[in-house]
Structures are given as structure tokens and as C-alpha cells.
């Protein structure tokens, strides 16, 4: 592969652009210079650090180190899924639903991609595994967060209908089936849009990256197609698990709707 490597001086040249932003903000009294400086510094430290961390993991190429880093990614994704809720259920149950769903989806989709589809040597080669897991988690996370939000919102809106169905003797999953279907549709929307727009409206990030790194555009497109299939399947699975999990969370074992367990945040 042939690509133009960036020197530290090149990065400094890019940083000049953001410094110009800061100076503009200062002279025009926009009051943004502080926010710009903090955001830019955070980005610099986070990306710089992850570069070194990934380099270390790739050099080790150890299954244990790779698995440990993958688990950290799942944990952070689970936390993110909950942080985006308007109403949440206290305690570990909700975190368990979010993180548990992402763990199942990430494990199944990543292992399938690595062994059946890509097949690097060794199969857990972190250079492939971690970016693929990241893309799966990133998209599933959006879906799961949307679904949990849709379940709690729809349940509050449809309370009378759900309770009427429970009173008629339906089980908690029968009575919330309308809510579950609505939530799954909501959760699938972003990935369906992303697939429909890919290549026409947007050039997906991974494909862009590979092209910059010197990969033949047709080969990059093939990789992107593979990834789109994997992440949409993973998102669909995660969205369905999370919708059922969400319905389980807002009801109890006596098939009652327990909206009082929701805390508005």
C-alpha cells in the first residue's frame, strides 16, 4: 500500500487552522475560544493515546489483551446507551440490558466476521477485530439507545392501551407487542438510512479511510459492503433484544406495567 505518511510538522500545520478559529473567536468576541481549545486538546490527547494503545495491542497480537480491550469497548458502549435515555430505570437492570445486548451482538457479529468472512491469520488479529467490533458497537449502540428510549416513551403514551390488554388477560409481552414493534422500527431507522444513502449521499468513513491508505476503490467498496451487511444484521439483532429487554424492564413478573420505576432524567 502506498500512502503519504504525516509528519508531526504536518499535524502542526493542521493545528494552525484551529488556532485561527480561536483567534477569530477572540477578536469577534464569540466567547468560543475556551470551548475550542478544550475540545481540540481532548481530541488530540484521546486520539493520540488510542493510536499508541492500538499500536501496543497490535504488536502483542495476544488473544487475552485483545479480549480485554474489546470488553472495555463493550462496557463504555453500554454506559453510552444508557446516558442517552430521557427516562431510565434505576439500578443495574437497565445497564445490564444495554451492555448485555451489546455484548451478545458484538461477540456474535465480530466472531462471525473474523472467522467466516475475513479469515485473517490468526483469526483474532486485533488489527481487524478491534475496528470491526468498534463499527458494530457504534451502530448497535445507536440502535439500542433509540429502542430503549422508544419503549419507555411509547409505554408512557400507550399506558391505557397496555393496561387494557393486561386486564383482558394478555401476558406482558403480548400487551406490549405494539410498543416493541414501534421501538424496533425506530431503532432500525438510522442503519436503514445509512445503507440507502451509502455511496450516493455519503462516502462511508471506512471506505474513505481505505482509499486514503492506497487501497483500490473497488476493493474498499467490497469491504464497505461487507461491513454494512454485518453492522445492519448486528443492529437488527441488538434492536430486537433491547426492545424485548425494555418491555421486560417496565413490567413485572405478575404482568403489571410498572411505569413508576422510570426515573425522568
Amino acid at each position, binding site marked *: 500500500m502506498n500512502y503519504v505518511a504525516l509528519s508531526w510538522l504536518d499535524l502542526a500545520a493542521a493545528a494552525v487552522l484551529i488556532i485561527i478559529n480561536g483567534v477569530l473567536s477572540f477578536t469577534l468576541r464569540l466567547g468560543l475560544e475556551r470551548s475550542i481549545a478544550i475540545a481540540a486538546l481532548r481530541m488530540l490527547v484521546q486520539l493520540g493515546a488510542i493510536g499508541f494503545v492500538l499500536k501496543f495491542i497490535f504488536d502483542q497480537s495476544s488473544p487475552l489483551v485483545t479480549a480485554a480491550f474489546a470488553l472495555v469497548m463493550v462496557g463504555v458502549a453500554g454506559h453510552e446507551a444508557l446516558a442517552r435515555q430521557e427516562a431510565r430505570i434505576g439500578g443495574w437492570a437497565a445497564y445490564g440490558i444495554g451492555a448485555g445486548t451489546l455484548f451478545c451482538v458484538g461477540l456474535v457479529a465480530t466472531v462471525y466476521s473474523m472467522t467466516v468472512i475475513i479469515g485473517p491469520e490468526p483469526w483474532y488479529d486485533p488489527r481487524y477485530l478491534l475496528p470491526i467490533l468498534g463499527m458494530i458497537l457504534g451502530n448497535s449502540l445507536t440502535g439500542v439507545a433509540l429502542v430503549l428510549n422508544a419503549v419507555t416513551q411509547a409505554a408512557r403514551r400507550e*399506558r391505557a*392501551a397496555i393496561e387494557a*390488554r393486561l*386486564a*383482558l*388477560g394478555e*401476558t406482558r409481552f403480548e400487551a406490549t407487542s*405494539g410498543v416493541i414493534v414501534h421501538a424496533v422500527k425506530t431503532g432500525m431507522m438510522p442503519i436503514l438510512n445509512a445503507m440507502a444513502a451509502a455511496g450516493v449521499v455519503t462516502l462511508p468513513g471506512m471506505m474513505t479511510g481505505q482509499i486514503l491508505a492506497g487501497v483500490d476503490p473497488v476493493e474498499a467498496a467490497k469491504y464497505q459492503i461487507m461491513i454494512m451487511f454485518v453492522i445492519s444484521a448486528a443492529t437488527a439483532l441488538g434492536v430486537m433484544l433491547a426492545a424485548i429487554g425494555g418491555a421486560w424492564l417496565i413490567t413485572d413478573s*405478575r404482568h*403489571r406495567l410498572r411505569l413508576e420505576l422510570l426515573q425522568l432524567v
Partner: protein
Amino acid sequence: MLRVEKLKVGGLPPLSFEVAKGECMSIEGPSGSGKTRLLRAIADLDDAPGYVFLEGVERREMPAPQWRRQVRYLAAEPGWWAATPREHFPASVDRGKLGRLLDSVGLEDSLLDQPIGQLSTGERLRLALVRGLIDEPRVLLLDEPTGALDQQSRALVDELIRFQLLADRVVLLVSHDSVEIERLADQRLQLGDTGRGVSSAQPAVNGSAK
């Protein structure tokens, strides 16, 4: 047939009473006195300490859906989840029975295929009653079943309730209509005005009017 023992609902003192087959008990009290909460607790829609027995079997001894198929709570404001009333009935519903029930509360069959949103409050209330009676639950917990009805529909619904009592069902009736209560109730339960005041089950004055 329906026996309630030391049921703790909200701020009320523990309630105990028994209603026999074919009998109706009215539940009275001002707004906020816990009438709806009591019915919901009996249907096991809300958690409440204490016991509710149907022919000697406590509610916790069976799955909640099975309990609610026999002990049916009908809300004052019924909920709907599909576009037309027909979709709220099982596909296997006995058409003849459905037609007779609709007829008994003065509703046309054609109403079943109209959008829910286009029906009047009174029509929806009566449709909910039909939906709740079609599978013949043994205990009916009726939360103001005639509250939003005109005089004529009210008489039809009262007639239907009386018919349910003749079929040996148990009826618990929340109502603000003293005429309706005197016509139907064999017992009256009074809930206190603060929610913790006296509550008593006593025979109705004109209890055997039916």
C-alpha cells in the same frame, strides 16, 4: 365466591369482604378515596399486600393473566390499541354472541369497522364493556361503567349488568349514581373521604330489588 382479606390499598385501612355468586357490591366514596385503586388491586394490576380469593384460590396461586381472564377490570377510560373496534376482539370470536352483546347495549354491528377515533365517548365505553364480557369472566370490576352515558344507554348497560348477575357472575361496581346503586347493589362499601376514614361493607337498603 370472591373473598378479599386484609387487602391494603394506598392509604386505606385493610379491607375484608366477601361477595357471593350472583351478587353485586357497590363501592362508593368521593374522588381520590381509592375506589379505582381497590379494583385495580383486586385485578392484580397494582401490587397490594393482603389476599384475594376466587372460590378459595388466592390470586398469587396462578399466573396473573389467568387470574385476569376470570377477574376482569374495566377502566373508566378504556384503552384501545388498534385502528378499529373489531381488531380488539380475538379473530376466533363467536360472531353471534358478539352481535347479541352489542345489540344489548344499543350498538350496531357496523360500528366494529369504524375508526376508533370517530366513535363517541359513550360508544367507546359500551364497546369496552362488550370487549370485557365476551369471554365470560366470572368477576366484573366495573369502574363507572355508565359514567359518560345518556339515560337510555345507562338503562341498557344496567340491564346487561343485571343479566350478568343472573348468570352467577360477581360484580363490583364503582358508581356515583345512587339510583343505579340501589337498583343493582346487594352490598355497599363506603370508602372514607380522606382515603383513611371509615370503610364498611353493609347490606344495601333495597338490596333485593333485582
